[in-house]
């Protein structure tokens, strides 16, 4: 596994010039994945329609992908990317993997190839759940990265199956009759394990070393599909202040909303930086209070630091905390599975 110094010296395949929102966690994730994948293997990314696509593959003005300022002289450093419709990224990656394998089996391709699929949670868990689960089920040796910003950010911050309870989105607005998203999110980590993934993780660049290490492990995974869910605080959709993305990534994990989790088939896994005991975790209100999508639930404490439930919303916050605790307990149980 690489140290930061080594990593910093690598060529990221994510280049300057994307039009992602300033402060977007996806850009940070791509920058690190881009460096982690500079490992001498030929790299192919596939990408479903998402923020990540429309903001990085805009022809001819911004194509924010590729290694180096000019096409590399060594094929192993070369990089290709393929975009197709929202749900397609896992299947695209699987097909590239298959072709590379068939060519290798014939002796027509002698160099190693790594294939990585990228989707948003809308593309992977809503319209693309079928594609995601079946690629995993077929054991394709690809790495799938799902950038989970809990909304369809690309189309204007609508509800997705990964939306946190009570979150306000443009299709679960807050009003007298509705208090944001009424449903708990899809248990996508459990689904990925049940579908047969060889490695399942949930980690954001807020946990820098763990993120890079996890990406390197996923790219080296030979036993089947490795899938990494990357919590991706969305500055425009979650409505938080500039410069808070890394902090929110960390707080969301520590409060139990999206705990860092790494699991490998046959080895089990662990929950990182999130205590099973809720009393040992930072107050959930302090995570929610930084985001305007939860301002109907919490407010700044009148006496100063921290956040508290808005009058009349105490029961909702109790419910939210109960879901969070279930979420953490569930991940601890999944970690025990081998």
């Amino acid at each position: 596994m690489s140290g930061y110094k080594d990593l910093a010296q690598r060529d990221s395949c994510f280049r300057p010039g994307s039009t992602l929102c300033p402060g977007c966690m996806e850009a940070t994730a791509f920058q690190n994945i881009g460096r982690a994948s500079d490992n001498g293997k030929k790299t192919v990314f596939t990408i479903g329609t998402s923020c990540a696509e429309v903001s990085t593959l805009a022809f001819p003005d911004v194509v924010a992908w590729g290694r180096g300022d000019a096409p590399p002289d060594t094929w192993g450093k070369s990089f290709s990317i393929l975009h197709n419709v929202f749900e397609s990224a896992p299947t695209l990656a699987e097909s590239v993997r298959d072709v590379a394998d068939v060519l290798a089996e014939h002796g027509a391709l002698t160099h190693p190839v790594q294939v990585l699929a990228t989707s948003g949670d809308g593309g992977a868990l809503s319209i693309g759940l079928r594609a995601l689960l079946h690629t995993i089920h077929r054991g394709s040796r690809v790495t799938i990265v799902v950038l989970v910003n809990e909304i369809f950010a690309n189309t204007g911050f609508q509800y997705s199956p990964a939306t946190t309870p009570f979150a306000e989105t443009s299709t679960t607005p807050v009003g007298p009759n509705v208090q944001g998203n009424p449903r708990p999110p899809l248990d996508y980590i459990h689904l990925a394990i049940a579908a047969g993934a060889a490695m399942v993780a949930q980690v954001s660049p807020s946990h820098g070393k763990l993120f890079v290490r996890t990406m390197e492990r996923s790219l080296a995974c030979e036993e089947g599909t490795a899938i990494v869910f990357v919590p991706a605080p969305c500055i425009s959709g979650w409505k938080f202040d500039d410069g808070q993305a890394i902090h929110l990534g960390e707080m969301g994990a520590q409060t139990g909303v999206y705990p860092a989790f790494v699991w490998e088939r046959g080895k089990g896994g662990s929950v990182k930086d999130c205590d099973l005991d809720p009393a040992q975790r930072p107050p959930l209100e302090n995570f929610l209070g930084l985001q305007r999508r939860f301002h109907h639930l919490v407010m700044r404490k009148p006496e100063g630091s921290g956040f508290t439930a808005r009058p009349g919303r105490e029961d909702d916050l109790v419910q939210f905390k109960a879901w969070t605790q279930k979420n953490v307990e569930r991940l601890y149980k999944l970690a025990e599975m081998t």
Partner: protein
Amino acid sequence: MKTASEALEAPQAHRTTAAGEIYDRAIDLAPVRAAHSAQYTAREEIVADGNTAAAIATLQMWRAVVFPGFPITPSTKWIETVASRIAGDPKSKKRVKLLEAEHAVADYLVGAAAACRDLIFSTATSSVGLDHMTETTRSLGASGLGNVMIVDVYRATANFPLCIEGDPSDTLAHRDDGFIQVCARGKQQIYDTMLQMPCLGMHPEVLTPTMPGYYGIKDSHKSGKLMVEPDHDVNAFQDEWIGPCPLPGLLNGDTAFGNCVTSRHFQGFKWSQKQRLERVLDLLPAIGADFEKRFGRPGLAYFDEVGWAVDSPGEGSAEWQGGERRRVDIAVVGMGPDFGTFEFLREPYEKSSGLRVAGVAMRLLTPFPRAALRERLSDAKVVLVVNQAHHYGRGHLTLDVVDALSDLDQPPIVVSAFAGLGGANVSEETWERMLDHAKLALDGHRVASSALFHEGEAL
């Protein structure tokens, strides 16, 4: 041979193209070609149905090594045949890839074809299966991936009511997907068409995916004699037309596919797509002629013809009367195997009616061979277009035929008919009834803008 790490560290020659860099030595397809396990080593007459004929043709291509599929009636036997032949051949390194839905198959085709643009990736589907692919077939049509071939086994497209028999409403609903669409009829034409399609789609000036098709049940499920060619000759023919793709793939290139563009650049992409498709009109006859020269059977053509001018027409023939050549009274435009029934009764109808009757069975559907059809039909007084797919107006074919004739100073009268919907047989009685209907227009009567015929009756 270098080790993987040595190879990775070694600089490799690369060259710049309009779509990125190509590393010419990254992939060497010679071992793939050498590993091809032949289906046939000599010309042989076998008995096969249409799906089997199509599957055998695809299996004979050395460039086809991975076959993604998902079953749907009436195309299912294509993937079953491919699977069983691969399973039964210990020397074969080809693979069947079973996906979870047609949409996944289409996505798989995108990734596979983009990964290596010098291999051929093919599947078969039908009806709502093709519809399910639509989101991605639209991408494919514009992708430049001429190494994709989707075999469409025609079947009516609807589930209210569901009908599993073959009418071409599926393929005709996909005219704007951007594929080269060719209709085949009869086992032999199906087989021959499959062999020629990649030559067209992968031509460097075309680079457009292909969608050969044939009627479900009528052609897909009925067996007959089929002449199969040895794999060696099949591949020699394809090698003549298919060279290394001039643009990079994902594996041998440093490139990006499927960019996001503004409307300003969208125009350029679409213009280029259309230009490439138009080149088909020039190349198709040349490929067809080469096929005929090599194999002694008619190759690809815009349409099949019956009853038009012959080299030495005898006095007394329908074409000549009193030493003068007669114009065609009724020209039929149709497609598919039911056209054979018309061919069978054309001469008797000419004798009984005293009219001169000719016809064309469309083969190239997209791009529509507008100029060639106009030239062929310009001599006719009335054109009877037989549509076999539901359409909100006068029929898909009718619209194209009317458009093709619109440049003529005095275009023939176009009479539009629907028959054989849902794959129903178009009987001799129905053909006669439709020809009588066209005759009314010939005699100066007004006829309905379109009419539906079935079992000898106008409904």
